[in-house]
């Protein structure tokens, strides 16, 4: 794939709507565009989360009605999968790999450092709403760990110093005017 094509994809993925900014019509649109696919529920939930940033609780009855399933069934699927959020995340989603290959390269120490630096535990968001921290069990970057993911970018061989630089960049970059 050539550079230009890759760059296009990146900018296309950038704009994320403000958290909490959703309407029942948005949900209906996403369900309607996918409901005739075989086994449409996961694609629908992905589409909603990609559009709104999370799957609002208010979406459950709408999805249930349109798919002719019970609310319990829809809720059960959302709660089963770690990937789906029912509340908005902070401005940045940070995932730290907790799996064995990263552990072998200092992943546990990095986990502690990350939590100390951000002042939050897993499944929490910093008070300034900049970073939501989640654990992840393997990013497939196992020969160059420890690895983290910041939004759509995976970063390898992360040291505490490298992490601090990254966080500083992340929290200051929002002030830049483009």
């Amino acid at each position, binding site marked *: 794939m050539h550079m230009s094509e890759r760059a296009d994809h990146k900018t296309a993925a950038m704009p994320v709507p403000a958290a909490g900014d959703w309407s029942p019509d948005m949900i209906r649109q996403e369900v309607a565009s996918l409901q005739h696919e075989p086994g*449409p529920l996961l694609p629908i939930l992905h589409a909603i989360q990609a559009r709104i940033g999370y799957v609002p609780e208010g979406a459950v009855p709408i999805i249930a009605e349109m798919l002719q399933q019970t609310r319990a069934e829809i809720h059960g699927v959302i709660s089963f999968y770690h990937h789906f959020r029912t509340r908005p995340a902070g401005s940045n989603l940070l995932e730290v790999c907790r799996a064995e290959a990263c552990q072998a*390269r200092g992943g546990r120490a990095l986990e502690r450092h990350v939590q100390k630096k951000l002042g939050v535990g897993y499944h929490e968001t910093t008070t300034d709403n900049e970073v939501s921290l989640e654990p992840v069990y393997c990013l497939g970057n196992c020969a160059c760990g420890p690895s983290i993911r910041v939004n759509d970018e995976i970063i390898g061989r992360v040291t505490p110093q490298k992490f601090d630089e990254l966080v500083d960049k992340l929290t200051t970059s929002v002030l830049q005017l483009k």
Partner: protein
Amino acid sequence: MTITIYVPCDTTALSLGADRVAQELQVAAAELNKDIRLVRNGSRGLFWLEPLVEVQTPYGRVAYGPVEPGQVKELVAAGLFEGNPDHALYLGDIAQHPYLQRQQRLTFARIGITDPVCIEDYIAHGGFAGLKNAAALTPQGIVDEIKASGLRGRGGAAFPAGIKWQTVLDEPHDQQKYVVCNADEGDSGTFADRLVMECDPYMLIEGMTIAGLAVGATLGFIYVRSEYLLSRKMLDEAIRRAEEHGYLGDNVCGNGRAFRLEVRLGAGAYICGEETSLLESLEGKRGLVRSKPPLPAIKGLFGQPTVVNNVLSLAAVPYIMAHGGKTYADYGMGRSLGTLPIQLAGNIKQGGLIELAFGVTLRKVLEDFGDGSFTGRPIKAVQVGGPLMAYLPESQWDTPMDYEAFAKLGAGIGHGGVVVFDDTVDMGEQARFAMEFCAVESCGKCTPCRIGSVRGVEVIDRIRAGDNRDNNLVLLEELCETMVDGSLCAMGGMTPFPVQSVMKHFPEDLMASPRPVEA
């Protein structure tokens, strides 16, 4: 004259700054008024050398690596565009690198060489030859070739692929059948599926299409874990182009049969790598494991006959159909035929992808390829086959990598991941993590897994705290037995393997109090 430069675009290269390296190269070329063609190739799987920059020269593709973005200027000044050897990062013709020369790359013959989504590149390097051969055969003829290859499921269960395909083929024809690719590569230490999807996606498309022709399926799904966004992007693009070129669609290779492919994203559930849980997830349900029988080959996706194979199994198929099952079966040993893509990871100096015939010893992999630990300290333990497999002490490293030989040790090869730990590892903590991981990822359907894993963490904590140690050790042994014998699937059934291996080979670590982790 245009100079062709290659900078990989797989996840590992990107995670180490490959995009910035590529940008710096373009800036440097513009400054010097050099006409360059920048190709974003896949990775060759020599990960300690990433980002690996290659330059096309009359003497082959000359490489430099690992290149940090800040080093590009100095490399260009030292003659990178001319393939000049006067730099410490100069590696010479990369195809001659001993790490590659010592491998037997049948499945991964193209990775790092081609532009992953360039279909012309794929065809120029032998792509679609297997599909063309298959399109000229009867379905039974294809299945016979797969049987002759001795190919066994590379996802971990090692079930003969040909027998699975035969079962689906033998189901009545007048019904919908499916091919499902398990690309939920959740085992830590594994990245071979990812490399197939990111670096040679047409190979997977070709393998699945052949499977479709073989069993009479017209629709295939690739279930990709949600962590692998780049894999999904590459596959979507490759599927689109394969349709345009007539390799997918209503008339595959002009032989009148239809086959279509769709990529579906998982949602961060390790258990969905278990095939029946994966099928439930594809159907839009919670990923609860199904009881078997019925086998998915008979009642699989939406209750229809379904081939479920791992990425690596399907990726081996184009080679088999292009060169013959017998050629593939000439590699390997005993009942483990063909090649095994070993993924060397963790605390290792030279980590990466190593495709070799079955039968190589772990020691050879660690020493000849890995060149020892990354930290330079002695290696203490190696976990082969993912989080549900045993930790092997040095006394077991001379075992040949063969399904049966590993099974005899109470270990397994799984999906071929090899995770290396140096002597600073606390094996008691590793045993505890095995149970903790199972508690997080259990689907919750059966009790031994759902409750057993939680109790496992508690019992290990008590042992490590010195609380009633002897009785708790007995309890842990019994708990492990219950989980192995009583669980519905491999998640609960194999979580005890790493724990038991620690109890057997590293008991002193299990008894020791937990060490504080420095932050």
